[in-house]
């Protein structure tokens, strides 16, 4: 895979340095360019293709681009570097990727709901207690339980809030452990593995006495979360984020999106180990504060650009939203219908549902209802815990 030394030498050090500079430009623009690509590029430059710059551009494009977006951005970067054309535009395109209009920040710790008039401040147990495990989980017996039943919106600032967040995290971990265990226990569909059986029969004079079985492989459940980050959801976003963070650390397959007036892919933020850093990155990704929620438009965007890649027959979509939509309900309904066809289950978690006297009267919520497999409350930790049994059955 190396170019002939003679031809490489004919390139001269100047050309090689230019090439290395181009590789660096590409790397800065987000391309993954390794040493083997650069080496091959040097070979391409010594080839007859390099006599014409169109030929060279096409060749380097095939070599350096490795997905559609890189493929489409390549020509501009190439022209800017090698021909000195449109330099400003290319530079602007690169910086625009990183900069948000005005980053929005969610607070994970103190701050948020008012602390006044909260008599039943829960006594926190020592951290590490298996809050979401065993019999204690469903019947209220401990101080944690009272915390578990407290509405997210009424959580006091400070330690109580922190405690609730930690609980949400532990809950998600425990949930996922149980869901995957059940998954394994059910996977006992067995088939005889002829290859292995026959291989063994040689030792028995050709009689297939020891049967070998092959286990059926099944794809794990994939959770795709769509989190509404509009103003009306502000109180809930930190809790749900923490919950999702722990869950995505656990489910090996999962994707997360944030939406308000636009849709943002935030899976990479959730793969951050520390929850606070995950939330920080998430805040950076959420941009464009103000304006209403456009659930329909965001779902349309999801269906158009992400669904094909992200969803398969073992996907469960979880939408965290209060259903207040400023878009057309018809649009939301149409997109929900399209979504429904693509995945196994759609779960809608609404933090308002748990309140007394709640009825799903928001127009958007009503439009979405017919397509949901589960419409559940998500106003306190207990309601999140109830999800587990549902997920285990999928």
């Amino acid at each position: 895979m190396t170019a002939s030394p003679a031809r490489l030498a004919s390139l001269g050090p100047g050309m090689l340095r230019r090439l290395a500079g181009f590789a660096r430009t590409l790397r800065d623009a987000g391309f993954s360019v390794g040493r083997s690509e650069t080496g091959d590029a040097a070979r391409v430059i010594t080839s007859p293709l390099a006599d014409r710059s169109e030929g060279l551009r096409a060749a380097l494009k095939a070599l350096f681009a490795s997905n559609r977006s890189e493929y489409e951005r390549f020509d501009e970067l190439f022209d800017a570097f090698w021909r000195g054309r449109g330099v400003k535009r290319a530079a602007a395109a690169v910086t625009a990727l990183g900069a948000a209009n005005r980053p929005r920040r969610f607070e994970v710790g103190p701050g948020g709901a008012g602390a006044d008039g909260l008599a039943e401040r829960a006594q926190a147990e020592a951290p590490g207690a298996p809050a979401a495990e065993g019999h204690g989980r469903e019947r209220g017996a401990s101080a944690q339980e009272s915390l578990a039943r407290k509405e997210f919106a009424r959580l006091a600032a400070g330690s109580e809030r922190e405690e609730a967040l930690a609980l949400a995290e532990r809950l998600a971990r425990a949930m996922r452990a149980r869901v995957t265990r059940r998954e394994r226990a059910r996977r006992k569909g067995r088939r005889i593995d002829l290859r292995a059986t026959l291989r063994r029969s040689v030792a028995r004079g050709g009689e297939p006495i020891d049967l070998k079985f092959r286990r059926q492989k099944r794809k794990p459940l994939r959770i795709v979360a769509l989190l509404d980050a509009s103003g009306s959801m502000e109180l809930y976003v930190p809790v749900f984020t923490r919950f999702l963070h722990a869950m995505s650390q656990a489910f090996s397959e999962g994707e997360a999106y944030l939406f308000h007036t636009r849709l943002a892919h935030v899976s990479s933020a959730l793969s951050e180990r520390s929850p606070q850093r995950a939330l920080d990155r998430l805040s950076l990704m959420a941009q464009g504060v103000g304006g209403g929620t456009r659930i329909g438009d965001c779902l349309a965007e999801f269906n158009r650009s992400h669904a094909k890649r992200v969803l398969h027959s073992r996907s469960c979509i979880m939408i965290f939203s209060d259903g207040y939509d400023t878009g057309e309900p018809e649009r939301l309904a149409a997109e929900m219908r399209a979504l429904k066809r693509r995945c196994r289950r759609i779960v809608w978690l609404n933090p308002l549902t748990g309140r007394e006297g709640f009825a799903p009267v928001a127009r958007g919520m009503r439009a979405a209802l017919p397509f949901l497999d589960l419409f559940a409350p998500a106003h306190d930790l207990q309601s999140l815990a109830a999800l587990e049994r549902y997920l285990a059955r999928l």
Partner: protein
Amino acid sequence: MPASIPRETIAARLAETGYVADRELATALWMMDYLKRPLLIEGEAGVGKTEVAKALALVHGAELIRMQCYEGLDANSALYEWNYQRQLIAIKAREGSGESPESIEARIFSEDYLLERPLLAAIRRKDPPVLLIDEVDRADEEFEAFLLELLSDFQITIPEFGTVSALSIPRVVLTSNGTRELSDALRRRCLYHYLDFPDVDREAAILRARQPGIDASFALQAARMVAGLRKEELRKAPGIAETLDWAATLAGLGVSDLSAEPEIVHATLLALLKTHEDRARVTPEVTARLAGRAA
């Protein structure tokens, strides 16, 4: 080692086989030989990804070995399998012959009892074939890792038999529809080409290449009409194969001007629109508008 053909020759020969390629694709195909790397082609369903491999095989006069990927595809069905029935018969037939178990074992795990599957077949040919790994995104991630290993070493180890090294390095074309994100490692191993729907002129050229009798101005009209349809928000945009079908249908019905026969044009759209929703969306009025613009 495959002989390198100049890039212009590749483009010309592609055109001879009826595949109308743009310059970038011809370059990518030339680079496959020059750098000995596989080519990964992505694009919507129906843009002619599979056709590229078929045309490439024709260009080089090579055999095309195709492997269709699917969920649950494992190494057994991609590489090799032992012919169990024959092995069992061989064991039974030699039962009373006093042959030693060792010699029986050596016999039934010999080449005669080996069934080639596409990947093994591709590296055991004397003349380098074109190996098409179709819809690689449908296979599992584990399989992808395995494929990566094969694509870098071009040798396969069969435990009962030994290591099989490639007699010739096949030209490998992988296609993906993007139903799953491919690993970075695989992407980096390959050259990359994104195949888009052809522009109007190229699609007209494809029509003329595939249907020699077609009128040039009608081919252009049909290509414009289809390009207009693709701009509508359809669930499933019509592919090139659909365009060919549709143009053939119209030619068979004796239509030579789209705007002259709007009813027939609308009725034949079923060759292009394959879902109920898309059919409902493209009303006779939309058809008339698009046909008027195309003419």
